[in-house]
């Protein structure tokens, strides 16, 4: 179950990183970064 959970998060992190580098609006880039912080921490099972 945890493995599936982490795979889902990995997928989301990958999508968001791709969006961060393709996005042209700075405000949206900052928002994506903020969303990525808890996601990466959950992917690493820190928080």
């Amino acid at each position, binding site marked *: 179950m945890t493995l599936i959970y982490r795979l889902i998060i990995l997928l989301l992190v990958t999508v968001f990183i791709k969006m961060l580098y393709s996005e042209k609006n700075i405000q949206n880039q900052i928002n994506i970064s903020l969303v990525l912080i808890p996601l990466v*921490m959950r992917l690493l099972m820190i928080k």
Partner: protein
Amino acid sequence: MGKHRIIAIILTGVMTLVIIFTGREFKDMHADIPIFPSDDLAEVKMLSDYFEGLKNTPGDTQVYVFEGEEEGGSVLILGGTHPNEPSSNLTSILFVENLKVDKGRVFVITESNKSAFTHNDPQEGSPHGYYIETASGQRFFKYGSRATNPIHQWPDPDVYVHASSGQQLSGSETRNLNRAYPGREDGTLTEKVAYGITSLINKEQIDLTIDLHEASPEYPVINAMVAHETSADIASFAILEMQFQSIEIALEMSPKNLHGLSHRELGDFTETYPLLMETANPAQGRLRGATSAELIVEGIDPIYEKAGNAGFLFVKFDENGHPLNERVARHTTGIIEIVKAFNCLNSGKEIIIGGIPGYDDMLQQGIGAYLR
């Protein structure tokens, strides 16, 4: 390289720094804090010694065992069922560091839900811990969450169904140790911890189990001792003795239709006499102002003072608040009086303990004077 790509690289760098910095703080919460047991400690067991299924899981926790020279009864003190109720954890640590046992056996678990000590409740703004001044310097103690860390138990169901009763609660209660008793061998991590504690009680034939808690000042069951019907006599004796010492405390009977709680299920499923105690913790209440380590330790909050003056609370709340010293002193005195009451009612199975400071001493000297 385009402007937006440069910004993305800068943001990636900033994000990485934030993750490293905050990640280290969160990782620190997974480390054990040092505890310095008294010379009377017989051994430190693990909960997995009683239930193999907890071995190498985040739910496995230390069980401090004290044995007197004479055979007698046995008591289990459960601290840290809810790690956002700090007087529970701190009282159990105080016992581990000071306890002397002449007769009988005393088992102490300081972090009953160990996983819940590794994180905070989201959106509560709680600090990771608080400090107490002791003779050996400042000591750090963790302030955790009410529930098991979701990185250790996921996902929460929409509705939590308590296994042995079929009672339905909100989904997040699936990670609440005090809704999981008597636990399940093949259940969630929280149910396994509950099962481990139930197994300990059965295997060690624990006579008396005392579960320590706190509640917000606006919660009706507060400054109270909750007793299973089998423990009512012991609780009544102990409460009378506490009231003679001018400590306000009430007796609450464990509701028969509220399942999963230690004071209900441990009485129904084991031979132990279960009791639960509550003190007033403004740091977990809904009316509090800024949440800080000072609020946890000092227990002073101007909003609660106003609410107290307006008569909205179930405890008196003045400018002195409810400091941790007082809350730990209440629990400590409660345990002493419960054990004395048990001794009165169970001749030949007495538990004779010492080394624990009295209520007034703790208020005057502070808990730090009794921590190593």
